[in-house]
């Protein structure tokens, strides 16, 4: 899993039918010091994250698991909202 910040929302009316009703968010990957790291990407949101929140997300095929559908073309999925991070 990776850390990111939710930076926006995206609307797409025409999409694969398995994704109808799915919320998608724009996220900016971050390092553990909350600094931006890499390019923003689009992830589905099954936990109800809001704009500006720090989240963690999974990538690749595992990202479609939270949707619980046989087929869903998803390669990034927000799976948790971060309360705090403690660095040692």
């Amino acid at each position, binding site marked *: 899993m990776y850390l990111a910040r939710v*930076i926006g*929302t995206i609307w797409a009316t025409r999409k*694969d039918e398995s994704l109808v009703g799915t919320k998608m968010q724009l996220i900016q990957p971050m390092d553990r010091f909350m600094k931006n790291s890499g390019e923003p990407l*689009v992830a589905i949101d099954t936990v109800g994250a809001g704009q500006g929140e720090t989240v963690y997300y999974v990538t690749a095929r595992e990202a479609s698991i939270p949707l619980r559908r046989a087929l*869903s073309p*998803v390669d990034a999925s927000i799976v948790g909202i971060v309360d705090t991070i403690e660095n040692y």
Partner: protein
Amino acid sequence: MILARVIGTVWATRKDEKLQGLKLQIVRPVTLDYKDREGFLVAVDAVGAGVGEVVLVVQGSSARQTSATENKPVDATIMAIVDKLDAT
């Protein structure tokens, strides 16, 4: 998923037989303000995107998770057409 713009179409007569009937598009990754990023990809079009449209591209094994690409040798699929995005 990444944001990209459709910049061309690929025709290939000789290909894996499982790819018969699939539409192949050339897509270029773009930033949140739709400016070009480096590189390009060939992606299967599962939603009927046209040249110039901004789309979402799913990569890796998740690209096979649509009814059009299931069990086919595909690692990038256009699975949504972007109407609008709102990023901070």
